[in-house]
Protein backbone atom coordinates (compact mmCIF):
# COMPACT_ATOMS: atom_id res chain seq x y z
CA UNK A 1 0.00 0.00 0.00
CA UNK A 2 1.84 3.09 -1.10
CA UNK A 3 1.53 6.37 -2.74
CA UNK A 4 -1.07 8.47 -0.96
CA UNK A 5 1.51 10.95 0.22
CA UNK A 6 4.54 10.47 -2.03
CA UNK A 7 4.26 13.93 -3.53
CA UNK A 8 4.43 15.48 -0.06
CA UNK A 9 8.11 14.67 0.22
CA UNK A 10 8.74 18.15 -1.24
CA UNK A 11 7.10 19.71 1.79
CA UNK A 12 8.29 17.21 4.36
CA UNK A 13 11.86 16.73 3.25
CA UNK A 14 14.07 14.51 5.37
CA UNK A 15 15.70 17.60 6.89
CA UNK A 16 12.32 18.85 8.13
CA UNK A 17 11.27 15.50 9.53
CA UNK A 18 14.65 15.14 11.22
CA UNK A 19 14.61 18.61 12.80
CA UNK A 20 10.94 18.16 13.66
CA UNK A 21 11.62 14.94 15.53
CA UNK A 22 14.96 15.97 17.05
CA UNK A 23 15.05 19.76 17.24
CA UNK A 24 18.51 21.26 17.78
CA UNK A 25 19.11 23.80 20.54
CA UNK A 26 15.87 22.70 22.16
CA UNK A 27 16.47 23.95 25.67
CA UNK A 28 16.09 26.90 27.95
CA UNK A 29 19.12 29.23 28.10
CA UNK A 30 19.77 30.41 31.61
CA UNK A 31 20.87 34.06 31.82
CA UNK A 32 19.66 34.80 28.32
CA UNK A 33 20.20 38.36 27.13
CA UNK A 34 16.96 38.40 25.18
CA UNK A 35 13.85 36.24 25.18
CA UNK A 36 10.46 36.32 23.51
CA UNK A 37 7.39 34.18 23.27
CA UNK A 38 5.73 33.40 19.98
CA UNK A 39 2.15 32.24 19.70
CA UNK A 40 0.07 31.03 16.87
CA UNK A 41 -3.35 31.21 18.50
CA UNK A 42 -5.06 29.53 15.55
CA UNK A 43 -3.30 26.22 16.03
CA UNK A 44 -1.81 26.50 19.49
CA UNK A 45 1.82 26.51 18.36
CA UNK A 46 3.94 28.22 20.93
CA UNK A 47 7.66 28.81 21.24
CA UNK A 48 9.89 30.51 23.72
CA UNK A 49 13.15 31.81 22.27
CA UNK A 50 16.35 32.56 24.17
CA UNK A 51 19.32 34.54 22.86
CA UNK A 52 22.77 35.11 24.30
CA UNK A 53 24.74 37.96 22.79
CA UNK A 54 28.49 38.53 22.58
CA UNK A 55 29.92 41.77 23.98
CA UNK A 56 30.10 43.13 20.42
CA UNK A 57 26.39 42.43 19.83
CA UNK A 58 26.49 39.26 17.81
CA UNK A 59 24.21 36.33 18.58
CA UNK A 60 26.37 33.94 20.56
CA UNK A 61 23.72 31.32 21.12
CA UNK A 62 20.07 30.77 20.27
CA UNK A 63 17.81 28.15 21.79
CA UNK A 64 14.09 27.50 22.05
CA UNK A 65 11.42 25.52 23.79
CA UNK A 66 7.80 24.98 22.96
CA UNK A 67 5.35 22.88 21.06
CA UNK A 68 4.23 22.80 17.50
CA UNK A 69 3.95 20.89 14.27
CA UNK A 70 6.89 19.42 12.39
CA UNK A 71 7.21 22.51 10.23
CA UNK A 72 7.22 25.08 13.03
CA UNK A 73 9.57 22.96 15.15
CA UNK A 74 11.97 22.34 12.25
CA UNK A 75 11.90 26.00 11.28
CA UNK A 76 12.77 27.09 14.83
CA UNK A 77 15.48 24.46 15.03
CA UNK A 78 17.10 25.52 11.74
CA UNK A 79 16.80 29.16 12.70
CA UNK A 80 18.72 28.72 15.94
CA UNK A 81 21.52 27.21 13.88
CA UNK A 82 21.74 29.81 11.13
CA UNK A 83 21.46 32.98 13.22
CA UNK A 84 24.46 32.14 15.36
CA UNK A 85 27.24 34.69 14.84
CA UNK A 86 24.97 37.29 13.24
CA UNK A 87 24.26 40.80 14.42
CA UNK A 88 20.67 41.74 15.19
CA UNK A 89 20.33 43.55 11.87
CA UNK A 90 21.80 40.66 9.91
CA UNK A 91 19.48 38.20 11.64
CA UNK A 92 16.43 40.38 10.98
CA UNK A 93 17.39 40.80 7.36
CA UNK A 94 17.76 37.06 6.97
CA UNK A 95 14.35 36.64 8.59
CA UNK A 96 12.76 39.01 6.10
CA UNK A 97 14.30 37.07 3.23
CA UNK A 98 13.19 33.79 4.74
CA UNK A 99 9.61 35.03 5.02
CA UNK A 100 9.71 35.88 1.35
CA UNK A 101 11.02 32.39 0.59
CA UNK A 102 8.24 30.83 2.67
CA UNK A 103 5.52 32.86 1.00
CA UNK A 104 6.71 32.70 -2.60
CA UNK A 105 9.07 29.75 -2.78
CA UNK A 106 11.90 31.97 -4.04
CA UNK A 107 14.05 34.86 -2.95
CA UNK A 108 15.38 36.73 -5.96
CA UNK A 109 17.09 39.48 -3.91
CA UNK A 110 18.88 37.17 -1.54
CA UNK A 111 22.27 37.68 -3.12
CA UNK A 112 25.50 35.81 -2.68
CA UNK A 113 26.05 36.93 0.90
CA UNK A 114 23.04 34.97 2.12
CA UNK A 115 23.44 32.02 -0.21
CA UNK A 116 24.73 29.54 2.35
CA UNK A 117 22.08 30.42 4.92
CA UNK A 118 19.29 30.32 2.39
CA UNK A 119 20.43 26.93 1.19
CA UNK A 120 20.13 25.63 4.72
CA UNK A 121 16.63 27.08 4.98
CA UNK A 122 15.58 26.04 1.48
CA UNK A 123 13.94 22.76 2.61
CA UNK A 124 11.20 24.95 4.13
CA UNK A 125 10.43 26.71 0.84
CA UNK A 126 7.83 24.04 0.04
CA UNK A 127 5.37 25.65 2.45
CA UNK A 128 4.56 28.38 -0.06
CA UNK A 129 2.25 25.91 -1.77
CA UNK A 130 0.32 25.51 1.49
CA UNK A 131 -0.92 28.97 2.46
CA UNK A 132 -2.35 27.76 5.75
CA UNK A 133 1.07 26.43 6.76
CA UNK A 134 3.26 29.46 5.95
CA UNK A 135 2.67 30.84 9.43
CA UNK A 136 4.01 27.60 10.92
CA UNK A 137 7.32 28.21 9.19
CA UNK A 138 7.52 31.90 10.05
CA UNK A 139 6.53 31.81 13.74
CA UNK A 140 10.11 31.34 14.95
CA UNK A 141 11.34 34.27 12.86
CA UNK A 142 8.58 36.56 14.12
CA UNK A 143 9.63 35.56 17.61
CA UNK A 144 13.26 36.30 16.82
CA UNK A 145 12.32 39.84 15.77
CA UNK A 146 10.37 40.28 18.98
CA UNK A 147 13.34 39.12 21.05
CA UNK A 148 15.76 41.40 19.21
CA UNK A 149 13.39 44.36 19.45
CA UNK A 150 12.65 43.69 23.09
CA UNK A 151 8.89 43.40 22.51
CA UNK A 152 8.75 39.99 24.22
CA UNK A 153 5.72 38.66 22.36
CA UNK A 154 5.03 37.73 18.78
CA UNK A 155 2.18 36.20 16.89
CA UNK A 156 2.21 34.75 13.42
CA UNK A 157 -1.47 35.56 12.97
Amino acid sequence: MSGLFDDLRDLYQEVILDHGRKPRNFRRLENADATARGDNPMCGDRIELFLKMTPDHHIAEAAFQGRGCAISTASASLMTEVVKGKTADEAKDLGAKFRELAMTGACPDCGAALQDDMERLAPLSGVHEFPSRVKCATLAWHTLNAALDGTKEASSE
Partner: protein
Amino acid sequence: MDGVTSAPFDVARIRQDFPILSQPQARGRPLVFLDSGASAQKPRAVIDAMVRCMETAYANVHRGAYRLSELATDSYEAARTATARFLNAADTREIVFTKNSTEAMNLVAHSWGRGVMKPGQAVLISELEHHANIVPWQMLRDDKGIELRVCRVTDAGELDMDDLERKLADGKVGLVAVAHMSNVLGTVTPVERIVALAHAHGAKVLFDGSQAAVHRRVDVQAIGCDFYCFTGHKLYGPTGIGVLWARLELLDRMPPFLGGGDMISAVTFEKSEWAAVPAKFEAGTPPIIEAVGLHAAIDYVTAIGMPAIEAHERSLVDHAMGALSEVPGLTLLGHAQDRGGVFAFALDAAHPHDLATLLDRAGIAVRAGRHCAEPLHARFGLDNGTTRASFGLYTTKEEVDLLARALTEAREFFK
Protein backbone atom coordinates in the same frame (compact mmCIF):
# COMPACT_ATOMS: atom_id res chain seq x y z
CA MET B 1 -43.91 13.83 10.59
CA ASP B 2 -42.80 10.76 12.51
CA GLY B 3 -45.64 8.78 11.03
CA VAL B 4 -44.48 9.37 7.47
CA THR B 5 -42.52 6.49 6.01
CA SER B 6 -39.61 7.84 4.03
CA ALA B 7 -37.86 6.12 1.13
CA PRO B 8 -34.94 3.85 2.04
CA PHE B 9 -31.77 5.84 2.68
CA ASP B 10 -29.68 5.70 -0.48
CA VAL B 11 -26.42 7.54 0.12
CA ALA B 12 -25.34 7.29 -3.53
CA ARG B 13 -28.51 9.04 -4.62
CA ILE B 14 -28.18 11.64 -1.87
CA ARG B 15 -24.63 12.45 -2.96
CA GLN B 16 -25.98 13.40 -6.38
CA ASP B 17 -27.96 16.17 -4.69
CA PHE B 18 -24.70 17.92 -3.69
CA PRO B 19 -23.01 19.49 -6.73
CA ILE B 20 -19.70 20.03 -4.95
CA LEU B 21 -19.22 16.31 -4.37
CA SER B 22 -18.82 15.71 -8.10
CA GLN B 23 -16.58 18.71 -8.79
CA PRO B 24 -13.15 17.72 -10.07
CA GLN B 25 -10.56 18.23 -7.33
CA ALA B 26 -6.86 18.93 -7.43
CA ARG B 27 -4.81 15.83 -8.33
CA GLY B 28 -7.90 14.14 -9.69
CA ARG B 29 -8.92 12.59 -6.40
CA PRO B 30 -12.57 12.73 -5.41
CA LEU B 31 -13.46 15.05 -2.57
CA VAL B 32 -13.76 13.28 0.75
CA PHE B 33 -15.40 15.96 2.83
CA LEU B 34 -15.09 15.13 6.51
CA ASP B 35 -15.55 18.63 7.90
CA SER B 36 -19.32 18.91 7.95
CA GLY B 37 -19.20 19.64 11.67
CA ALA B 38 -17.56 22.96 10.80
CA SER B 39 -19.92 23.67 7.92
CA ALA B 40 -21.87 21.33 5.69
CA GLN B 41 -22.09 21.25 1.91
CA LYS B 42 -25.23 22.47 0.14
CA PRO B 43 -27.73 20.43 -1.84
CA ARG B 44 -29.03 21.62 -5.19
CA ALA B 45 -32.44 22.28 -3.60
CA VAL B 46 -30.97 24.95 -1.31
CA ILE B 47 -28.90 26.55 -4.04
CA ASP B 48 -31.87 26.65 -6.42
CA ALA B 49 -34.27 28.05 -3.84
CA MET B 50 -31.95 30.95 -3.08
CA VAL B 51 -31.35 31.69 -6.75
CA ARG B 52 -35.08 31.49 -7.43
CA CYS B 53 -35.78 33.93 -4.62
CA MET B 54 -33.33 36.45 -6.01
CA GLU B 55 -34.50 35.97 -9.58
CA THR B 56 -38.24 36.05 -9.03
CA ALA B 57 -39.37 37.07 -5.57
CA TYR B 58 -36.85 39.34 -3.94
CA ALA B 59 -37.52 42.62 -2.16
CA ASN B 60 -37.18 43.84 1.40
CA VAL B 61 -39.67 42.37 3.87
CA HIS B 62 -42.26 43.75 6.26
CA ARG B 63 -42.48 47.21 4.72
CA GLY B 64 -43.02 47.40 0.99
CA ALA B 65 -46.58 48.18 -0.08
CA TYR B 66 -46.15 46.26 -3.27
CA ARG B 67 -46.59 42.77 -4.53
CA LEU B 68 -42.92 41.73 -4.61
CA SER B 69 -42.32 42.79 -1.02
CA GLU B 70 -45.39 40.86 0.04
CA LEU B 71 -44.04 37.78 -1.74
CA ALA B 72 -40.67 38.13 -0.03
CA THR B 73 -42.37 38.65 3.34
CA ASP B 74 -44.43 35.51 2.76
CA SER B 75 -41.27 33.53 1.94
CA TYR B 76 -39.46 34.87 4.99
CA GLU B 77 -42.35 34.07 7.32
CA ALA B 78 -42.84 30.67 5.69
CA ALA B 79 -39.25 29.89 6.68
CA ARG B 80 -40.16 30.75 10.26
CA THR B 81 -43.16 28.43 10.14
CA ALA B 82 -41.03 25.62 8.69
CA THR B 83 -38.41 26.15 11.39
CA ALA B 84 -41.06 26.07 14.11
CA ARG B 85 -42.35 22.79 12.72
CA PHE B 86 -38.78 21.42 12.45
CA LEU B 87 -38.25 21.97 16.19
CA ASN B 88 -41.87 21.22 17.07
CA ALA B 89 -42.21 24.65 18.64
CA ALA B 90 -45.61 25.40 20.15
CA ASP B 91 -45.82 28.79 18.48
CA THR B 92 -44.23 30.21 15.33
CA ARG B 93 -43.45 33.45 17.18
CA GLU B 94 -40.98 31.49 19.29
CA ILE B 95 -38.57 31.37 16.35
CA VAL B 96 -36.08 34.26 16.17
CA PHE B 97 -33.76 34.42 13.19
CA THR B 98 -30.18 35.42 14.00
CA LYS B 99 -26.91 35.40 12.11
CA ASN B 100 -25.78 32.03 13.52
CA SER B 101 -25.94 30.11 16.79
CA THR B 102 -23.17 32.26 18.25
CA GLU B 103 -25.40 35.30 17.84
CA ALA B 104 -28.36 33.38 19.26
CA MET B 105 -26.40 32.60 22.43
CA ASN B 106 -25.17 36.18 22.67
CA LEU B 107 -28.78 37.31 22.34
CA VAL B 108 -29.77 35.17 25.31
CA ALA B 109 -26.72 36.27 27.32
CA HIS B 110 -27.54 39.89 26.59
CA SER B 111 -31.31 39.98 26.81
CA TRP B 112 -31.99 37.26 29.36
CA GLY B 113 -28.67 37.48 31.18
CA ARG B 114 -28.43 41.24 31.49
CA GLY B 115 -32.14 41.98 31.33
CA VAL B 116 -33.64 39.33 33.57
CA MET B 117 -30.96 37.57 35.66
CA LYS B 118 -29.87 39.13 38.94
CA PRO B 119 -26.34 39.66 40.27
CA GLY B 120 -25.45 36.76 42.53
CA GLN B 121 -27.13 34.25 40.27
CA ALA B 122 -25.01 31.78 38.32
CA VAL B 123 -24.79 30.37 34.81
CA LEU B 124 -23.75 26.72 34.64
CA ILE B 125 -21.95 25.56 31.50
CA SER B 126 -19.75 22.50 30.98
CA GLU B 127 -16.20 21.60 30.03
CA LEU B 128 -17.27 20.37 26.62
CA GLU B 129 -18.60 23.69 25.37
CA HIS B 130 -17.67 25.46 22.16
CA HIS B 131 -16.26 28.94 22.78
CA ALA B 132 -19.61 30.33 21.58
CA ASN B 133 -21.19 28.90 24.72
CA ILE B 134 -18.39 30.06 27.02
CA VAL B 135 -17.38 33.58 26.06
CA PRO B 136 -20.84 35.27 26.10
CA TRP B 137 -21.30 34.04 29.69
CA GLN B 138 -17.85 35.26 30.72
CA MET B 139 -18.78 38.66 29.32
CA LEU B 140 -22.05 38.51 31.26
CA ARG B 141 -20.17 37.51 34.41
CA ASP B 142 -17.75 40.43 34.12
CA ASP B 143 -20.54 42.84 33.27
CA LYS B 144 -23.15 41.94 35.77
CA GLY B 145 -21.59 40.02 38.64
CA ILE B 146 -23.05 36.70 37.55
CA GLU B 147 -21.12 33.66 38.66
CA LEU B 148 -19.94 31.22 36.00
CA ARG B 149 -19.86 27.55 36.96
CA VAL B 150 -18.46 24.71 34.89
CA CYS B 151 -19.76 21.16 35.03
CA ARG B 152 -17.04 18.54 34.69
CA VAL B 153 -16.75 16.02 31.90
CA THR B 154 -15.79 12.42 32.66
CA ASP B 155 -12.80 10.69 31.06
CA ALA B 156 -15.23 9.01 28.67
CA GLY B 157 -16.33 12.46 27.53
CA GLU B 158 -19.75 12.49 29.14
CA LEU B 159 -21.22 15.17 31.36
CA ASP B 160 -20.59 14.33 35.00
CA MET B 161 -24.22 14.39 36.09
CA ASP B 162 -23.32 14.18 39.78
CA ASP B 163 -21.21 17.28 39.37
CA LEU B 164 -24.07 18.97 37.53
CA GLU B 165 -26.41 18.23 40.39
CA ARG B 166 -23.88 19.40 42.98
CA LYS B 167 -23.43 22.68 41.15
CA LEU B 168 -27.20 23.22 40.99
CA ALA B 169 -27.76 22.35 44.63
CA ASP B 170 -27.62 25.82 46.21
CA GLY B 171 -30.37 27.10 43.92
CA LYS B 172 -28.29 30.04 42.66
CA VAL B 173 -28.05 28.81 39.09
CA GLY B 174 -30.43 30.78 36.91
CA LEU B 175 -29.44 29.18 33.63
CA VAL B 176 -27.85 25.92 32.53
CA ALA B 177 -26.28 26.34 29.08
CA VAL B 178 -24.77 23.22 27.50
CA ALA B 179 -24.27 21.65 24.11
CA HIS B 180 -26.79 19.09 22.93
CA MET B 181 -23.90 17.43 21.11
CA SER B 182 -20.19 18.12 21.52
CA ASN B 183 -18.39 19.40 18.43
CA VAL B 184 -15.24 17.57 19.55
CA LEU B 185 -16.22 14.47 21.49
CA GLY B 186 -19.38 13.67 19.56
CA THR B 187 -21.07 13.19 22.93
CA VAL B 188 -24.83 13.62 22.88
CA THR B 189 -25.82 15.01 26.25
CA PRO B 190 -28.82 13.65 28.19
CA VAL B 191 -31.05 16.64 27.54
CA GLU B 192 -34.19 15.43 29.28
CA ARG B 193 -32.28 14.59 32.48
CA ILE B 194 -30.50 17.94 32.40
CA VAL B 195 -33.83 19.73 32.05
CA ALA B 196 -35.40 17.75 34.90
CA LEU B 197 -32.48 18.49 37.24
CA ALA B 198 -32.21 22.15 36.27
CA HIS B 199 -35.92 22.84 36.54
CA ALA B 200 -36.06 21.09 39.90
CA HIS B 201 -33.47 23.61 41.09
CA GLY B 202 -35.17 26.63 39.55
CA ALA B 203 -32.84 27.08 36.56
CA LYS B 204 -33.77 27.64 32.94
CA VAL B 205 -32.01 25.55 30.30
CA LEU B 206 -30.39 26.51 27.00
CA PHE B 207 -29.10 23.91 24.57
CA ASP B 208 -26.57 24.72 21.89
CA GLY B 209 -27.93 22.50 19.14
CA SER B 210 -25.42 23.54 16.47
CA GLN B 211 -24.27 19.93 16.05
CA ALA B 212 -27.25 17.96 17.31
CA ALA B 213 -29.99 19.53 15.21
CA VAL B 214 -28.23 18.28 12.09
CA HIS B 215 -28.08 14.68 13.15
CA ARG B 216 -31.29 13.88 14.95
CA ARG B 217 -34.84 14.98 15.38
CA VAL B 218 -35.15 17.79 17.90
CA ASP B 219 -38.47 18.29 19.64
CA VAL B 220 -38.15 21.25 21.98
CA GLN B 221 -41.46 20.48 23.68
CA ALA B 222 -40.46 16.90 24.39
CA ILE B 223 -37.02 17.99 25.60
CA GLY B 224 -38.69 20.60 27.79
CA CYS B 225 -35.88 23.17 27.59
CA ASP B 226 -36.30 26.94 27.58
CA PHE B 227 -33.88 28.03 24.85
CA TYR B 228 -32.52 26.09 21.87
CA CYS B 229 -30.13 27.34 19.17
CA PHE B 230 -28.90 26.00 15.88
CA THR B 231 -27.33 27.36 12.74
CA GLY B 232 -28.30 27.09 9.07
CA HIS B 233 -24.95 26.39 7.50
CA LYS B 234 -24.35 23.16 9.39
CA LEU B 235 -27.81 21.94 8.39
CA TYR B 236 -26.94 22.03 4.67
CA GLY B 237 -28.35 25.56 4.48
CA PRO B 238 -26.60 28.86 3.84
CA THR B 239 -24.31 30.84 6.10
CA GLY B 240 -25.68 34.00 7.66
CA ILE B 241 -28.75 32.56 9.33
CA GLY B 242 -29.16 30.96 12.71
CA VAL B 243 -32.11 30.20 14.91
CA LEU B 244 -33.01 30.94 18.48
CA TRP B 245 -36.04 29.15 19.80
CA ALA B 246 -37.28 30.28 23.19
CA ARG B 247 -40.54 29.96 25.09
CA LEU B 248 -42.86 32.79 24.21
CA GLU B 249 -43.29 33.97 27.79
CA LEU B 250 -39.49 34.25 28.12
CA LEU B 251 -39.11 36.19 24.88
CA ASP B 252 -41.89 38.52 26.02
CA ARG B 253 -39.99 39.31 29.22
CA MET B 254 -36.64 39.87 27.52
CA PRO B 255 -35.49 43.33 26.41
CA PRO B 256 -34.27 43.63 22.81
CA PHE B 257 -30.73 42.73 21.81
CA LEU B 258 -30.02 45.05 18.87
CA GLY B 259 -31.88 48.26 18.17
CA GLY B 260 -32.94 49.52 14.78
CA GLY B 261 -35.62 49.25 12.18
CA ASP B 262 -38.21 46.48 12.21
CA MET B 263 -37.94 45.91 15.98
CA ILE B 264 -40.02 48.89 17.09
CA SER B 265 -43.67 49.83 16.99
CA ALA B 266 -43.20 53.57 17.56
CA VAL B 267 -40.15 55.82 17.65
CA THR B 268 -39.78 59.41 18.80
CA PHE B 269 -36.55 61.04 19.90
CA GLU B 270 -37.72 60.66 23.48
CA LYS B 271 -38.39 56.93 23.43
CA SER B 272 -39.27 53.91 21.37
CA GLU B 273 -41.74 51.13 21.87
CA TRP B 274 -40.71 47.62 21.05
CA ALA B 275 -42.42 45.56 18.42
CA ALA B 276 -43.97 42.26 19.41
CA VAL B 277 -41.98 39.01 19.49
CA PRO B 278 -40.19 37.91 17.34
CA ALA B 279 -39.74 41.22 15.47
CA LYS B 280 -38.41 42.74 18.71
CA PHE B 281 -35.29 40.63 18.25
CA GLU B 282 -34.82 41.07 14.52
CA ALA B 283 -33.48 44.59 14.08
CA GLY B 284 -32.68 45.75 10.58
CA THR B 285 -33.13 43.94 7.29
CA PRO B 286 -33.04 40.26 8.17
CA PRO B 287 -31.30 37.46 6.22
CA ILE B 288 -34.12 37.06 3.70
CA ILE B 289 -32.45 34.96 1.03
CA GLU B 290 -30.76 32.93 3.74
CA ALA B 291 -34.12 32.24 5.38
CA VAL B 292 -35.37 30.92 2.05
CA GLY B 293 -32.27 28.73 1.86
CA LEU B 294 -32.77 27.49 5.41
CA HIS B 295 -36.37 26.67 4.59
CA ALA B 296 -35.21 24.61 1.60
CA ALA B 297 -32.63 22.85 3.77
CA ILE B 298 -35.25 21.99 6.37
CA ASP B 299 -37.56 20.68 3.66
CA TYR B 300 -34.66 18.69 2.22
CA VAL B 301 -33.69 16.89 5.44
CA THR B 302 -37.34 16.47 6.42
CA ALA B 303 -38.12 14.77 3.12
CA ILE B 304 -35.26 12.33 3.69
CA GLY B 305 -36.41 12.02 7.28
CA MET B 306 -34.41 12.88 10.38
CA PRO B 307 -34.84 9.33 11.73
CA ALA B 308 -33.37 7.93 8.47
CA ILE B 309 -30.47 10.40 8.65
CA GLU B 310 -29.88 9.44 12.26
CA ALA B 311 -29.93 5.73 11.41
CA HIS B 312 -27.46 6.21 8.55
CA GLU B 313 -25.12 8.17 10.78
CA ARG B 314 -25.43 5.66 13.58
CA SER B 315 -24.21 2.92 11.28
CA LEU B 316 -21.37 5.20 10.12
CA VAL B 317 -20.40 5.90 13.72
CA ASP B 318 -20.29 2.17 14.52
CA HIS B 319 -18.24 1.57 11.40
CA ALA B 320 -15.85 4.42 12.24
CA MET B 321 -15.36 3.24 15.82
CA GLY B 322 -14.24 -0.10 14.41
CA ALA B 323 -12.08 1.28 11.60
CA LEU B 324 -10.37 3.96 13.70
CA SER B 325 -9.67 1.59 16.57
CA GLU B 326 -7.49 -0.41 14.17
CA VAL B 327 -5.25 2.53 13.32
CA PRO B 328 -1.99 2.06 15.25
CA GLY B 329 -1.01 4.92 17.54
CA LEU B 330 -4.38 6.65 17.31
CA THR B 331 -6.07 8.04 20.42
CA LEU B 332 -9.72 8.82 19.98
CA LEU B 333 -11.14 11.54 22.17
CA GLY B 334 -14.52 10.74 23.68
CA HIS B 335 -16.14 7.39 24.26
CA ALA B 336 -19.62 8.41 25.25
CA GLN B 337 -22.39 5.82 25.14
CA ASP B 338 -24.52 8.16 23.07
CA ARG B 339 -22.37 9.80 20.42
CA GLY B 340 -22.69 11.23 16.95
CA GLY B 341 -20.48 11.43 13.89
CA VAL B 342 -17.73 13.69 15.17
CA PHE B 343 -14.32 12.12 15.80
CA ALA B 344 -11.41 14.08 17.22
CA PHE B 345 -8.19 12.14 17.53
CA ALA B 346 -4.47 12.43 18.14
CA LEU B 347 -1.90 10.35 16.27
CA ASP B 348 1.28 9.58 18.18
CA ALA B 349 3.63 10.24 15.26
CA ALA B 350 2.14 13.42 13.84
CA HIS B 351 1.04 16.86 14.94
CA PRO B 352 -2.62 17.58 14.01
CA HIS B 353 -1.64 20.22 11.45
CA ASP B 354 0.90 18.02 9.72
CA LEU B 355 -1.70 15.29 9.66
CA ALA B 356 -4.35 17.57 8.17
CA THR B 357 -1.94 18.63 5.43
CA LEU B 358 -1.27 14.99 4.57
CA LEU B 359 -4.93 14.09 4.58
CA ASP B 360 -5.63 17.06 2.32
CA ARG B 361 -3.24 15.54 -0.21
CA ALA B 362 -5.31 12.38 -0.13
CA GLY B 363 -8.35 14.53 -0.92
CA ILE B 364 -9.64 14.26 2.65
CA ALA B 365 -10.82 17.53 4.19
CA VAL B 366 -10.58 17.50 7.98
CA ARG B 367 -10.13 20.16 10.60
CA ALA B 368 -7.05 20.48 12.80
CA GLY B 369 -6.64 22.49 15.96
CA ARG B 370 -8.75 22.90 19.02
CA HIS B 371 -12.05 23.38 17.25
CA CYS B 372 -13.09 26.42 19.29
CA ALA B 373 -12.99 24.24 22.38
CA GLU B 374 -9.68 25.13 23.98
CA PRO B 375 -10.69 24.35 27.58
CA LEU B 376 -11.86 20.89 26.53
CA HIS B 377 -8.50 20.12 24.92
CA ALA B 378 -6.76 21.34 28.06
CA ARG B 379 -9.05 19.07 30.08
CA PHE B 380 -7.79 16.07 28.10
CA GLY B 381 -4.16 17.27 28.12
CA LEU B 382 -4.08 17.82 24.36
CA ASP B 383 -2.71 21.34 24.07
CA ASN B 384 -1.49 20.60 20.55
CA GLY B 385 -5.11 20.11 19.58
CA THR B 386 -6.57 17.25 17.62
CA THR B 387 -7.51 16.35 14.10
CA ARG B 388 -11.26 16.07 13.61
CA ALA B 389 -13.33 14.17 11.10
CA SER B 390 -17.03 14.96 11.14
CA PHE B 391 -19.73 13.32 9.10
CA GLY B 392 -22.72 14.51 7.16
CA LEU B 393 -25.65 12.68 5.64
CA TYR B 394 -23.61 12.21 2.44
CA THR B 395 -20.69 10.49 4.20
CA THR B 396 -20.04 6.89 3.19
CA LYS B 397 -18.37 3.91 4.82
CA GLU B 398 -15.85 3.89 1.98
CA GLU B 399 -14.81 7.41 2.95
CA VAL B 400 -14.38 6.31 6.55
CA ASP B 401 -12.23 3.40 5.36
CA LEU B 402 -10.11 5.73 3.25
CA LEU B 403 -9.60 7.94 6.29
CA ALA B 404 -8.45 4.97 8.35
CA ARG B 405 -6.08 3.84 5.61
CA ALA B 406 -4.70 7.36 5.17
CA LEU B 407 -4.10 7.67 8.91
CA THR B 408 -2.21 4.42 8.95
CA GLU B 409 -0.08 5.58 6.03
CA ALA B 410 0.44 9.01 7.54
CA ARG B 411 1.90 7.39 10.61
CA GLU B 412 4.37 5.50 8.45
CA PHE B 413 5.25 8.76 6.69
CA PHE B 414 6.21 10.51 9.91
CA LYS B 415 7.86 7.59 11.69
